[in-house]
């Protein structure tokens, strides 16, 4: 393979600089004792202290994490069993219909999902707040779990199941001892993605959240609309730190599961 020319390297460096500059810009000014993002006065941690001293913000943070974990868990549960069910369908037409329906929410614009869920919740009579936000997050995370689990199921050799059944395993045992361990990496990837979808979502939550309940995205939006506040910068610093930690964690987990699956195949 040829080495990259200087111009190519320069181009890549430029793209990376542009991608990261706004993020580091935010974090840099989160340590600014002056109240703006234009002029750095002196180093301070007061904005971080402000985040942790603001009990309302802390509650919102906890809400966001709870919604992400809970919706990730529920979506993984429904999605995994849904994927197993889809694979068990023999009728090709029905299977393809289900798969297309599965992808509708993935490609739909957030605004449309949010608006239609708002109508739905109002009609059914679900009060806007924690419940409606949780249900919507579960709803839009299910298809991504299915998409993560399905390839693992399709790659699975069905003779494994036949063998287990021949050896006298019950259906329950086949599920817990054969199928689930085999598709475990897909389930974890699905759960992880469902959580990031939930943490990242703004538009859908914005539509279905009532007055009393708020997640971090919605809160940042209302703070940003009010103008510049270095508390938001401090939040960005924290979010960036957590993201990096999660990336490193995820990297190790997937690397480990790759090794494990390789050993299983041997």
């Amino acid at each position, binding site marked *: 393979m040829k080495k*990259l020319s200087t111009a190519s390297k320069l181009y890549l460096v430029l793209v990376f600089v542009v991608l990261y500059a706004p993020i580091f810009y935010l974090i840099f000014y989160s340590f600014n004792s002056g109240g703006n993002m234009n002029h750095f006065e002196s180093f301070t941690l007061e904005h971080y202290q402000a985040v942790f001293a603001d009990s309302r913000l802390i509650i919102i943070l906890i809400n966001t994490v709870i919604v992400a974990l809970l919706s990730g868990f529920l979506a993984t549960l429904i999605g995994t069993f849904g994927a197993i069910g889809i694979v068990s369908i023999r009728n090709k037409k029905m299977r393809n219909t289900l798969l297309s329906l599965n992808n509708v929410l993935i490609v739909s614009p957030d605004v449309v999902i949010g608006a*239609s869920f708002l109508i739905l919740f109002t009609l059914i009579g679900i009060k806007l707040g924690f419940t409606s936000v949780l249900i919507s997050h579960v709803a839009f995370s299910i298809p991504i779990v299915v998409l993560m689990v399905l390839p693992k199921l399709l790659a699975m050799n069905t003779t494994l199941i036949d063998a287990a059944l021949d050896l006298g395993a019950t259906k329950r045992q086949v599920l817990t001892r054969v199928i689930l361990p085999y598709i475990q990496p897909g389930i974890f990837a699905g759960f992880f993605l469902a959580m990031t979808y939930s943490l990242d979502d703004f538009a859908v939550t914005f539509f279905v959240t009532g007055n009393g309940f708020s997640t971090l995205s919605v809160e940042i939006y209302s703070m940003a609309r009010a103008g510049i506040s270095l508390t938001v910068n401090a939040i960005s610093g924290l979010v960036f730190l957590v*993201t990096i930690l999660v990336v490193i964690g995820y990297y190790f987990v997937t690397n480990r599961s790759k090794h494990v699956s390789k050993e299983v195949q041997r």
Partner: protein
Amino acid sequence: MFNKASKGSLFPYTIWIAFFVIAPIALIVYYSMLDLNGNFTFNNYKAFFTPVYLKMTLTSFWYAFLITLFTLIIAYPTAFLLTKTKHKHLWLMLIIIPSWINLLLKTYAFIGIFGLYGPVNAFIEVFGLESKQILFTDFSFIFVSVYIFIPFMIIPIFNSLDKLNPTLVYAARDLGASSFTTFRRVIFPLTIDGVKSGIQVTFIPALSLFMITRLIAGNKVITLGTAIEQQFLVSQNWGMGSTIAVFLIIIMVVIMLLTGQKKGGRA
């Protein structure tokens, strides 16, 4: 393949499809035919075909087109060069990380960067030019959107370039094709699927994102998404909002068909 009993596991999943995939679309279509008092009417559709809404749809389209175009122009060479680097997957990871930072935080950063006293204006002043308001312009809206979509465009293109068999490129070169011809006749056609998925994940959100227009473009740029949000949450006119949503769904389906792939090759 799998035993019949596992069909029972489909139950919660089908409930989900009924309530959260089929019902919402049906409700949007139903509400689009209701007026403010809940009476049946086609007035919303009539209103949509007036110059006000048609112009808005066209400008929204134009912005989405420009955003997608610029994103593609920047993302394709980046993806191409990334596949040539030594630790390409590590570099790709570094491209993906910014996409995980909350979109609102990134948008918020630009309120500061493009602000009247922000770094961009400070830079302009160095050249003796007068500082001016960059926020709340078409330029800032397009720039921020392109910035946000770049990683999402790079990922599918990178994947399709990565799958490309390099011997095909060598063969083309051996047969005397110039590097430009090789790119035009071999590399680009073979990676068109990645480009199509990239366009899908950029164009549709570009039509519908409303937080960027609200925060960066003030109320100057109105996209279909902004209009829906406005009708639903500000004017409380769900009928009109649903009508715009119906058209957004139709546009989405058309784009899916245009950029559809024979094999379901999602990255």
